[in-house]
């Protein structure tokens, strides 16, 4: 009897010692710090390895379309995820809108500029405004939507310096080569070289929603699904909240 138990344990251990999976997550730039922290915890727990490709959601979606080896896609807006779903590149059933965010106007830490509304951005003192590219990058798309809604976009369009992703806009403000920028509140919180001049009220801002999903072509669907589930878990949720993200209810 003892021999049988020992044999079963050995067998189980053998089966359980599957080689660790390596999961690649394509995620929006604004998720950089939070996801890295979550991944570190998860790696210790599961033994799997998580590697990231952070960037503008538009760029990442394009790369996935061209066959880049992603297992999970975590976008900063629904439109990019819709695009991939239409092309049948994601597992629809795994799609979940996970996070919300808040837009803020940031200025360099030493700046004396006062921004109390969207209209203040039209001041002559604001010569250049950094936004993530408003044509495709979610942060830029959101920012433009807000400024259009406030009927200020036409007035400031000529001052806009588009950057490749939202962290680029942040860096531009940090370097003081622009007077102001519009980024997510979660981005502003990680930088000491800038300060928040104005928080866009929820009523004015467009709905910001970060969906995540499993990429159909994933080579490790099981392990990827496991990590995806972890991202939806309460533990991960607490980390996101600490960084300033809003947790959305499941769709």
């Amino acid at each position, binding site marked *: 009897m003892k021999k049988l138990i020992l044999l079963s344990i050995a067998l189980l251990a053998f089966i359980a010692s599957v080689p660790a999976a390596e999961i690649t997550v394509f995620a929006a730039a604004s998720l950089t710090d939070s996801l890295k922290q979550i991944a570190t915890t998860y790696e210790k727990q599961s033994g799997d390895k998580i590697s990231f490709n952070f960037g*503008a959601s*538009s*760029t990442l979606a*394009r790369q996935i*379309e061209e066959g880049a080896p992603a297992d999970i896609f975590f976008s900063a807006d629904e439109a990019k995820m819709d*695009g991939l779903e239409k092309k049948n590149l994601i597992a629809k059933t795994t799609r979940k809108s996970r996070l919300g965010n808040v837009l803020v106007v940031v200025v360099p830490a030493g700046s004396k500029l006062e921004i109390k509304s969207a209209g203040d951005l039209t001041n002559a003192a604001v*010569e*250049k405004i950094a936004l993530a*590219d408003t*044509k*495709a990058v979610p942060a830029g798309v959101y920012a433009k939507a807000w400024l259009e809604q406030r009927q200020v976009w036409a007035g400031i369009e000529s001052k*806009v*310096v*588009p*950057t*490749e992703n939202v962290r680029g806009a942040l860096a*531009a403000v940090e*370097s*003081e*080569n*622009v007077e102001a920028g519009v980024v997510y509140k979660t981005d502003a919180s990680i930088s000491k070289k800038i300060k928040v001049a104005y928080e866009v009220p929820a009523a004015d801002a467009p709905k910001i929603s970060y969906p995540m999903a499993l990429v159909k072509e994933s080579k490790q669907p099981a392990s990827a699904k496991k990590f995806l589930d972890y991202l939806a878990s309460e533990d991960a949720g607490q980390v996101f909240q600490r960084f300033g993200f809003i947790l959305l209810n499941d769709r």
Partner: protein
Amino acid sequence: MTAEEWQIIWFTAWVSALSTLAILPFGLALAWALARRDWPGKSIVETLVSLPLVMPPVATGLILLKMFGRHGAIGGFLHDTLNFDVIFTWRAVLLALGVMSFPLLVRSARVAFEEVNPRLEQIARTLGASPWRVFFTITVPLAARGIIAGMILAFARALGEFGATIMIAGNIPGKTSTLSLTIFQDVQLGQDEHAFRLLGASVIFAFAAVWCSELLLRRKRKIL
């Protein structure tokens, strides 16, 4: 081609031409000094001039960003004293194009100057010509073909510049959008058709530039 696309092509062409003209005086002066003179530190200068050719363009762009940004050595002075910005303006495009194409001009011009028989310059001096007169009436005309070939190469390089440009000028529609930057953006946005039209324009430019350069060099070889 839409009006916007023509604007991008036109902007790329004139800023490339302007950058080539802007680097010409200093480039020729340096090429001449490298060809005709020896001085302590010459090899360091030679290496520095060649750096933009060898370094990744984005790395050069980063150096320019640090130098010409509002807190940079040069940018700070320009901003504080003259209220003059470079980064994120068309002037940054000019700067990026100029810096990246400078080594090509200097190398071609240097070789052209080295091929001018120094005896001709010396005799011109004995005939009473000041060093400036010798330079403009003897040296430059005899080196003209090589100098022009160098200018064409520099122009072509400027047309295709991307890495340094995106670093310090960004891709601001209507202000700093060049052909290369727009093609890159179009691909990101999934606007492939748009990108291919601009790609076509790029190819035509590059073809014309290199063909002219080859033509000039061929004629030079014939005369020799």
